[in-house]
């Protein structure tokens, strides 16, 4: 008998959890670059609000592979993908090329579309007329637990 597939695929729905505002410490933690939380100084930060703009159109995808490491997207990171954003040149996108799901930077200039890896070990994928491209969503953030 034909096997039924499981949609136990590797995406996770972005739930709409209760807001948890965590007070930011007064002292900045210096890691050698300006803190992305600097603007929230003396405020409280909700991680969901920080990472997600539009919960109804947002999904999480764990990353496999190292093709986007130049954009600081590493194996095992979890991407925040918003389907409500119109993909533009320069966006990092979840794309399907001939059915294969990829995360790449979208290049769209002079009528040419390409998907560019952020790792010299991976070739740029030029989208030709005979290829099927679906831009599924725009990657707006990533996160990862350390230990």
């Amino acid at each position, binding site marked *: 008998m034909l096997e039924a597939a499981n949609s136990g*695929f590797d995406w996770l729905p972005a739930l709409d959890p209760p807001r948890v505002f965590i007070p930011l410490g007064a002292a900045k933690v210096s890691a050698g670059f300006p803190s992305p939380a600097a603007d929230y100084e003396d405020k409280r930060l909700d991680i969901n609000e920080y990472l997600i703009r539009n919960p109804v159109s947002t999904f999480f995808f764990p990353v496999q592979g190292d093709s986007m490491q130049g954009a600081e997207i590493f194996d095992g990171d979890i991407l925040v993908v918003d389907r409500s954003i119109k993909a533009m040149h320069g966006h990092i996108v979840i794309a399907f090329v001939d059915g294969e799901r990829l995360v790449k930077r979208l290049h769209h200039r002079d009528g040419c579309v390409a998907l560019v890896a952020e790792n010299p070990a991976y070739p740029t994928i030029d989208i030709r007329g005979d290829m099927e491209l679906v831009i599924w969503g725009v990657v707006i953030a990533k996160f990862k637990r350390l230990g």
Partner: protein
Amino acid sequence: MPVFALVDCNNFYASCEKLFDPKLASKPVVVLSNNDGCVVARSVEVKALGIPMGVPWFKIQKEAKQYGIVAFSSNYALYADMSNRVVEVLGQFTPNLEVYTFPLKSS
């Protein structure tokens, strides 16, 4: 004068499964009941083949092979999540919503 809107999602479970794989966009897709017993959702392509709602999966093996029907075990967590998203989007248009069943209403 009040305006009423009726919103219904077509082939909801099957549509949910298709969302995550564009390859399936124009393929016949069914979703099966618990333990892959019966067909509980049919994509428009499956309906066009004349496969009825509720038919046991084992009874349509021939058609499944012939037409390349893709079957999914039901994933209610997914359908509930997607249903909530739909309701939330509709809630952006009006606070007056009457939500009629999420569970097992597929046609």
